[in-house]
């Protein structure tokens, strides 16, 4: 320590202010974010690790995990294809109504998941014309797998498109145009020029989409009918077990989803640190 105090830069807060702000930030996050995460694992392991694992081996739990994987396996690729198509149309062409289209793609973010589920019940439920016709022909949508997938696609709809559009705007059209003048077909341009350029942004969007798809609760709660062993996804099963006071079972399955969230965050951070220049939208989600 020198006797003469070093003057702080004019663009810095005083030491004490900085310390207080850092403590507020760290303390706030510890209570708001870290504590719930720790609580999930603590509750899951409250009867020991063996009880937690045993609860996950129950047939209902197993069936829920299987169903959730199926839902994600269908809805995530569907949204990836939609995202690539939408980003291609929006960034490679000029047409009237582009802003409206982008706004409409973002629409599901401002609709409550429960309202989204309600929309599908109104459209495909047994009281509606379309619904009763479909059920009569043996294709029930609501209270069945198709409804769960539709609701999941709805709530995750903008994820991939929103990551790709800014990246593809930034990259421009020059590389694709060069490939075209050299005689490449449209599909070849997409496969060998565009997709390699957007691969990290695509992975980023798919990752977020998957986390949401596997964890969606509100919309699925409404359309699934919560039939045990049939339409109960992992989050729905957590609710059922919790309401039946099967605390360890509920928190064990919650811990499984929390692990998925942690893995998602880890890969996401890795992508942000390594490929920040190829992710235009890193900071938005």
């Amino acid at each position: 320590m020198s006797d003469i105090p070093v003057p702080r830069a004019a663009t810095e807060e005083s030491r004490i202010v900085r310390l207080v702000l850092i403590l507020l930030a760290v303390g706030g996050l510890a209570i708001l974010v870290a504590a719930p995460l720790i609580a999930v694992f603590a509750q899951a392991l409250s009867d020991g690790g063996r009880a937690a694992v045993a609860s996950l081996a129950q047939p209902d739990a197993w069936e829920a995990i299987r169903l959730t994987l199926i839902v994600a396996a269908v809805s995530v690729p569907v949204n990836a294809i939609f995202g690539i198509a939408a980003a291609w149309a929006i960034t490679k062409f000029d047409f009237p109504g582009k802003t409206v289209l982008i706004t409409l793609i973002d629409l599901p973010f401002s609709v409550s998941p429960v309202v989204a589920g309600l929309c599908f019940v109104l459209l495909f439920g047994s009281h509606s014309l379309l619904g009763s016709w479909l059920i009569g022909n043996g294709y029930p949508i609501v209270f069945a797998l198709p409804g769960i997938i539709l609701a999941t696609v709805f709530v995750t709809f903008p994820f991939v498109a929103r990551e790709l559009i800014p990246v593809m705007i930034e990259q421009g059209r020059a590389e694709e145009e060069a490939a075209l003048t050299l005689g490449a077909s449209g599909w070849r341009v997409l496969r060998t020029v565009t997709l390699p350029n957007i691969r990290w942004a695509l992975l980023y969007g798919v990752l977020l989409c998957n986390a949401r798809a596997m964890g969606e609760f509100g919309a699925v709660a409404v359309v699934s009918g919560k039939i045990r062993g049939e339409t109960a996804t992992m989050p729905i099963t957590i609710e059922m077990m919790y309401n039946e006071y099967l605390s360890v079972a509920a928190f064990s399955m919650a811990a499984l989803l929390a692990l998925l969230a942690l893995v998602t965050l880890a890969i996401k951070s890795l992508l942000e640190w390594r490929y920040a220049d190829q992710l235009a939208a890193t900071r938005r989600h």
Partner: protein
Amino acid sequence: MRIARSSPMPGFGLAMGITVTMLSLVVLLPIAALILQGASLGPSAWWAAVSSPRVAAALYLSFRLALFAALFNLVFGVLLAWVLVRYRFPGRKLIDAAVDLPFALPTAVAGIALTALYAPNGVLGAALPWKIAYTQWGIFVALVFVGLPFVTRTVQPVVEELDREVEEASASLGASRGMTLRRVVLPTLLPAALTGFALSLARAVGEYGSVIFIAGNIPLKTEIAPLLIVIRLEEFDIAGAAAIGLAMLAISFSMLFIINAVQIWSRRRIGLV
């Protein structure tokens, strides 16, 4: 393709076809079903359904607590963005990554975790002098959790791009640090902060999964609007559910509209546009 003639790129028809078809089938058609069902009730029946004490209380509760939570997140989010960009301290990167946890953690998991923490026998619930779980405070805590990352993530890039020279100019003209922050820095962050606030608010108004476990769900007191839709559906009261759903849709759309307008206004004011 006539409308896209200016571009030599192939595939406009296919890409646009996939986009518009999926958008229509997955998003627009279901929303139209809700609007049609709501409209078929007629204005007076709709109003009667929405203004009944239980529904009005639920809508008011959802909206009010979402507003409080979004305001909390506005302040805390700006603070967090500032600390994460401007200060260096151990664990900063870990904390930066942790901000996104509420986006990645399923809402049902967050719901039971928060309930376990804040229930009267939970770690935080037992330590605090007043009741959190099964009161409106519990709903507030859950809504703060789900909306936490929005403001931080919209404000962070703006703080990164702030021009230090402007702050130096302000200081050299004799402004105190507090005055510089208040008069120079905060106005620049305002549009981004308002965007984050709007996103946080929209998310909180419709939030269901994280709230229902901790709320206690007492009609007229801690029953949120999305839960009431679920209850109406379980009673096979399709019309009643559609009436509340339409009201929520209208609230969130008009909220987004107002906040977009405010945002454009604040951008103009500081000369960004």
